[in-house]
């Protein structure tokens, strides 16, 4: 009699797979990809980024400023949409309900307000990325100021995270900080990577 191939009971393995799968699905947080890659400097700080109610201002390597604000914990408030409308009003730009809805699901942006409509309606991510030229932060046309002001108007709990690239100029960061301080924000979170240092305390 030919011997049957041995049968392995795979049930426990499959059970485990499903368990892990459910765990990973539940813990995964989805977010839209950021507009720019930022290589943050490192520090010994071990504080984690706040989960929600964060306004992120990114400064890329070539000193372009990007802005992002989240929808908050209660997404039914549609904070992003409200902020967009409010800022649009300042520059006499009206957005359609579809555009507002689309904007709510999007991520960071770094472009002047007059390009906003084109950015929201752009075909794909590639076209959108090509539009980023940095948000104006000059004294003549300070649009970041407007975004910060409107965001804080609609969400008073906002915390500020500044995510600057290692190679960004301090003058640009200083400009961003000045804008925030003009809006009475005096506490900042600088996003950094964790590093460990050894301190030599011999013969001080």
């Amino acid at each position, binding site marked *: 009699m030919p011997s049957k191939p041995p049968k392995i009971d795979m049930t426990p393995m499959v059970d485990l*797979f499903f368990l892990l*799968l459910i765990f990973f699905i539940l813990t995964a947080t989805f977010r839209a990809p950021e507009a720019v890659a930022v290589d943050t*400097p490192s*520090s*010994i700080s071990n504080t984690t980024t706040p989960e929600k109610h964060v306004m992120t201002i990114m400064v890329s390597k070539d000193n372009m400023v990007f802005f992002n604000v989240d929808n908050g914990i209660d997404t039914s408030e549609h904070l992003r949409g409200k902020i967009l409308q409010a800022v649009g009003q300042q520059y006499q730009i009206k957005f359609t309900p579809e555009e507002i809805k689309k904007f709510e699901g999007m991520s960071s942006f770094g472009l002047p307000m007059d390009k906003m409509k084109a950015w929201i309606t752009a075909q794909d991510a590639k076209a959108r990325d090509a539009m980023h030229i940095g948000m104006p932060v000059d004294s003549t046309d300070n649009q970041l100021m407007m975004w910060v002001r409107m965001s804080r108007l609609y969400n008073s709990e906002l915390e500020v995270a500044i995510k600057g690239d290692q190679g960004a100029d301090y003058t640009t960061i200083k400009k961003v900080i000045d804008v925030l301080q003009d809006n009475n924000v005096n506490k*900042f979170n600088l996003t950094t990577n964790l590093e460990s240092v050894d301190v030599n305390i011999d013969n*001080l």
Partner: protein
Amino acid sequence: MAEIIANEGGHGKGKGKARAKKHGTHIDMTPMVDLACLLLTFFMLTTAFSKAKVMEIVLPEKSDKPQDAPQLDKDRALNIILIEGDKVLWYNGLADPTKPPLPTLTESDFSNEGIRRVLLRRNKDLFLEIEAMNKGVTEGTLEIPRDSVASRRKKMMTKDHKGPVVLIKAAENVKYKNIVDIIDEMAICNIARYALVDINVVEKKMVADYLASQASGATSSK
């Protein structure tokens, strides 16, 4: 009753049909398991476990009214000027053009033996005190709740009246990395009092003079 049971038993034993039915409903689970595996791999690879860390800084409120500069103890003041090329210049005391001579600048860097050594020397007492507490907590000799370590550290810092008051200034073309590094240095050395301030005219001139003397020194030595 007994008859019926016996009858049923006989029925089951006699024919192999019932047993065949038992084995008949075999569902091939392979595709489902394949899919589960695939999804599992996807989620495992896309999950980022380490959250981004942040460093908190609090700056003094800006006010439109011109304020008197806060009175600073001359002996405690330590000025750090960041300059281009990851370098640091520092001097003690205050640069007051009405009271010459101006303090001399010393060059340093961000290495372990650079500005950190300068800061540690000045802040020795407080640093060792906090280090001793941290060591006690990790080794278990000092029994205080973990969450109160930070508040104790803060209390030690407010009580400190000997350590330096560090004024951080940035010259032109300084990269953001350096600013983060120097603030991080403050955290490493447990500096109780430091501030990020704008560079003033006198210091700008001091830096320019220093760089000029460096350049001429380099050429003359050749």
